[in-house]
């Protein structure tokens, strides 16, 4: 098996005197879709920001593609989608994507391709500020698909997306993994877990599970990830 694309060891992030991520260690395997699941506020976004290298961390080490997280060389190799759409409301869909393509040095032909992939080809000329919230997030997602990132860190990319597009996007994530990219995708929707190769379950800054969906269900003797999550929480609370 290939070396992991991300190795997190003893990561601690403190914000406002309170640990937000508290001694988390795991690896993200290459060429797979790893799901990061947990309720809102559990530290998913902070963990992802740490991997991308935009978060001030209090302790621990993070290796990404063989370099410390946030290294200069990683900036064109890691794609990142923030939870709220980080795009310009006063630019059209195409102008947004084109700008980020120029900043990444991605080929100009990528612009139409990624807009098509997120299903916005009918809105290319529209101002992003006039789109719905879900459509804005798709513009943001489109910019992360530019070029050929080796690692994609996607923070809740399918929030507010209709079921057909959600299916298509997950198919696209699977294609990317099949082509050799590695993905870390967060969600608070437990049914998305079934589409992942591997799951990280997070609660209150700690990891509750790091295994395949099948192994998780077998270990907890449950039928759904939602139930597995509940079983793990109950098991971790001292009686």
């Amino acid at each position, binding site marked *: 098996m290939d070396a992991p694309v991300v190795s997190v060891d003893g990561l601690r992030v403190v914000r406002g005197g309170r640990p937000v991520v508290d001694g988390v260690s795991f690896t993200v395997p290459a060429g797979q879709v790893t799901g990061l699941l947990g309720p809102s506020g559990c530290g998913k976004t902070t963990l992802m920001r740490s991997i991308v290298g*935009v978060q*001030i961390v209090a302790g621990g080490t993070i290796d990404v593609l063989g370099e410390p997280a946030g290294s200069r060389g990683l*900036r064109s190799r890691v794609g990142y989608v*923030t939870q709220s759409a*980080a795009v310009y409301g006063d*630019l059209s869909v195409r*102008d947004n994507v084109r700008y980020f393509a120029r*900043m990444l040095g991605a080929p100009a032909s990528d612009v139409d391709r990624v807009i098509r992939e997120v299903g916005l080809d009918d809105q290319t000329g529209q*101002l992003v500020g006039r789109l719905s919230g879900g459509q804005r997030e798709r513009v943001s997602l489109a910019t992360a698909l530019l070029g050929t990132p080796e690692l994609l860190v996607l923070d809740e990319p399918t929030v507010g997306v209709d079921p057909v597009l959600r299916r298509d996007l997950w198919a696209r994530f699977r294609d990317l993994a099949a082509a050799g990219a590695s993905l870390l995708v967060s969600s608070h929707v437990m049914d998305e877990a079934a589409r992942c190769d591997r799951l990280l379950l997070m609660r209150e800054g700690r990891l509750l599970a790091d295994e395949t969906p099948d192994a998780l269900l077998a270990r907890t003797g449950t039928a759904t990830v939602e139930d597995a999550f509940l079983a793990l929480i109950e098991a971790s609370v001292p009686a």
Partner: protein
Amino acid sequence: MTPARTLATARRVLLQLRHDPRTLAMLLVVPVVLMGLLAWILTDAEFDFWAPPLLGIFPLLVMFLVTSVATLRERTGGTLERLLSMPTGKGDIIFGYALAFGTVAVVQAVVVSAAAFGLFGLQVAGSPGLVGLVAVIDALLGTALGLFVSAFARTEFQAVQFMPLVLIPQILLCGLLVPTDELPAVLRWVSVVLPMTYAVEAMQQVLHSVTTTSAFRQDVAILTLIAVGLLGLGAATLRRRTA
């Protein structure tokens, strides 16, 4: 930092402005209207005294406001974090903004100066072109100051409040209301480190001298240095890692 990325950023900022025609119109029309108002209430000789310094102060004020709000939006909207997680240099962002707003400033300076000279009959001893040059440098200075202070504001309300804090003391001390050598000693020293003092002095030189004086050249050099220095400080306030 690469020329391609800096230019792409400047182009993007200008495209954003193009989608905001009201702001663009106000950038050009408001200073002209204010200049007209000034010409209306003052005698010709008074207008010739007040208009050149104001031609220097308008672009500084306007560009300060526009830039501090625009960059604050970039910080709070997540796009700055996004850009800094990409192979973007901090200079690409700062100089991209400076280039875009500098371009707007050139247009603004040309329009307002043309109105002041053509419509309102402003007369100066020196060349109107030099008035325009100082106006452009002042606009860049406003952009640089706006970029810098936006780092210290969390909300757009705070950013707007920096204007009275940063600019009004400069207007009071720049030598326009009271000549700087008549200020109390302490304030005279303060005025020496405030950039608007040089902006106003440069305009007064054009007003009174047919040829460019050494004082004018010195003022322009100091203004340019301060603008470039503040742009550098502005770049330093961009942090790739935040809490």
